[in-house]
């Protein structure tokens, strides 16, 4: 097994005690972090001027495999993740067929081991076929290695099924991840409901379509005392409800995505389908609330909701275009540029939201640079500006609204369990 020495870098590990980045070497041997190498390094990485962090963990992505390999597959998706600095990604079950049984979990994990450039943690469905009727085989999937359950792509429409999912998942040590969307309010909408939807003549999705279900899930979690994790929080109303629930001691956690602090509904102007996603981009006030929520810890996690789509699914009339954007390769740069550079979050807070916090919610012993931990490492350049270019991306899909944007914060080397999965330093 390879021995790697990363020298001259400044190291920050948000899983460890508070403090500034410190200049120290990081040693890797046999896929683990070690105090010192047992022999000469096979590779010495000079990280002078660079930062060394735990590898990023994405709590929410769509790898599209099996069933939609024309959008993405496990090989291309994890290559994209590695280029974005991720060493672990948790993939949602809305594949074809749906990941609602153990065989699918095995398929994903085996393929990831053979072809993946990142650790892939499957998330199982809450309900069979994500139909919102009967529970999926959650226990058998837990045995096969899922790390959470979710019907993402769809809400769990009834409060009854959500409650049962929490109760049933609890002994298997799994958290329910909730895609909050009241379909009676959201149904038929294509962008945030407001002045822009009126100007563009598009059916709107009001923010209460999200927050009403966030409120419901917080209440169920409070009642059962069991955890729920709110996926892709997009609006102030949801942030407020989660903040209040946390203050009462309800075991709720939450994630947002880079687009919800980087863009507003105005990005839909000109019927730009790259700005079409679910939940939709909201107002500047919502963006502010998302950043406040990250800053005060109401929102624990920054996830990508990486959602690859083929050109043909975006090059359409706005209402017919698919929801979602790819996110692995822009998440770190967007977060660093828009949250840390602006002084809204400390570097430590930002990194925690992409490493140790998602590890905690997925209940994985990951996201740490402690000696003995899996050698998941990100080496990042926080100074040199770079420009987002679709043509350089590793994802099979090209659906990003950030093309041409100049960012700071670039993953230059990614190491997953001691294996170099992305390398701009050689």
């Amino acid at each position, binding site marked *: 097994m390879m021995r790697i020495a990363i020298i001259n870098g400044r190291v920050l590990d948000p899983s460890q005690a508070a403090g500034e980045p410190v200049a120290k070497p990081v040693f890797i041997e046999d896929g683990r972090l070690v105090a010192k190498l047992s022999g000469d390094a096979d590779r010495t990485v000079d990280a002078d001027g660079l930062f060394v962090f735990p590898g990023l963990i994405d709590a929410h992505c769509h790898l599209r495999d099996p069933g939609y390999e024309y959008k993405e597959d496990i090989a291309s998706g994890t290559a994209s993740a590695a280029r974005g600095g991720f060493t672990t990604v948790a993939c949602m079950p809305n594949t074809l067929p749906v990941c609602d049984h153990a065989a699918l979990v095995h398929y994903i994990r085996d393929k990831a081991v053979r072809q993946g450039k990142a650790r892939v943690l499957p998330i199982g469905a809450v309900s069979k076929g994500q139909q919102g009727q009967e529970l999926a085989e959650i226990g058998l999937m837990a045995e096969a290695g899922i790390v959470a359950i979710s019907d993402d792509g769809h809400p769990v429409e009834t409060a009854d099924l959500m409650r049962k999912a929490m109760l049933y998942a609890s002994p298997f040590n799994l958290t329910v991840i909730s895609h909050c969307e009241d379909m009676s309010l959201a149904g038929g909408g294509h962008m945030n*409901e*407001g*002045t*822009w*939807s*009126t*100007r*563009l*003549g*598009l*059916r*709107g999705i009001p923010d209460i379509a999200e927050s009403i279900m966030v409120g419901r899930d917080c209440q169920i979690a409070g009642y059962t005392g069991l955890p729920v994790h709110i996926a892709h929080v997009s609006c102030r109303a949801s942030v407020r409800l989660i903040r209040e629930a946390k203050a009462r001691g309800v075991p709720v956690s939450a994630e947002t995505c880079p687009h919800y602090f980087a863009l507003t509904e105005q990005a839909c102007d*000109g*019927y730009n389908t790259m700005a079409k996603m679910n939940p939709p981009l909201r107002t500047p006030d919502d963006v502010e609330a998302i950043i406040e929520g990250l800053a005060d810890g109401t929102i624990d996690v920054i996830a990508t909701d990486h959602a690859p789509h083929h050109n*043909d699914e975006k*090059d*359409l*009339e*706005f*209402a*017919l275009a698919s929801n979602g954007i790819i996110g692995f390769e822009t998440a770190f740069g967007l977060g660093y540029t828009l949250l840390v550079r602006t002084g809204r979050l400390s570097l430590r807070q930002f990194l925690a939201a992409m490493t140790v916090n998602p590890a905690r919610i997925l209940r994985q012993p990951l996201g740490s640079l402690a000696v003995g931990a899996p050698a998941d490492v990100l080496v990042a350049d926080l100074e040199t500006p770079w420009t987002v270019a679709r043509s350089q991306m590793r994802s099979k899909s090209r659906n990003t609204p950030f093309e041409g944007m100049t960012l700071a914060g670039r993953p230059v080397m990614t190491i997953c369990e001691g294996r170099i999965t992305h390398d701009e330093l050689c």
Partner: protein
Amino acid sequence: MMLNQKDLLGIQLLSADEIRLVLDTAETMKHVISASSKKTAHLQGKSVITLFYENSTRTRLSFELAAKYMGAASANVSASSSSVNKGESLIDTVRTIDQMGTDLLIMRHPQSGAPHLIASRVRASVINAGDGMNEHPTQALLDLFTMRARKGGLAGLQVAIVGDVMHSRVARSNLWALIKMGATVRLAAPGTLLPPGLDSLGAIVCPTVADAVRGADVVMGLRIQLERMQKALFPSVSEYARFYAVDESMLQLARKDAIIMHPGPCNHGIEMPTLVYDSDQSVIQEQVTNGVAVRMAIMFLLSSRRNV
């Protein structure tokens, strides 16, 4: 002066000067229509395609006659006969049409933004003949033409628009156009049929039809789709007519010389009583004639820009 754009996608993208130019040009065209020999050479040698993904006899006919009066070769493609139903994408369809040497492509489509999607992909000038709930710019321009002809100007006009604003591209295009030209727009509709943010976009939203119509120079009714009842947007036709019809009692509140407009087709007795529809104050038939003149003006302006 000329139009500053290749396409006519919506009023939102036009300046007040461009709107004025269209209306002035339409004055000239109206003379052509009223002449005994309706022939000009304004579009001689040009090819015009109408591509309608929604049925509309009157709008389509208006465009086709406008093209013929100006000597263009025109053809129409309707959704039922086109390859749309065979799963061909909109972009593929219009690229094919474009390759056949089309100069003006007039499209109606049920999806908002469909003309914007194709405009950058074809050489032809695209004219939006109605897209989803977004815009129907030629309708607004003919409405403004009619108002200006009757009222002598647009700045300072008080215009009441009554009905299903939410789903109406006619209301939206009129709203943008009238605000740009300095008119005041008051809207009245059931609360379920008003999209959000209208006040911040420059309209005055009124709680009742009476509030909207009081002192108005122009009263415009909008078509109500009766299917909207099934979506719980209003309870019944008779209740709608009771609270939202533009009837004689409402007209009493408008200025004595107020004109009555409707984009058609009208649900007689629901949006307005037949008496009002056919009254001396109604300019609804005139709107139809003006529609041809305005569409001639737009086609001429867009195609002459291309010759430069």
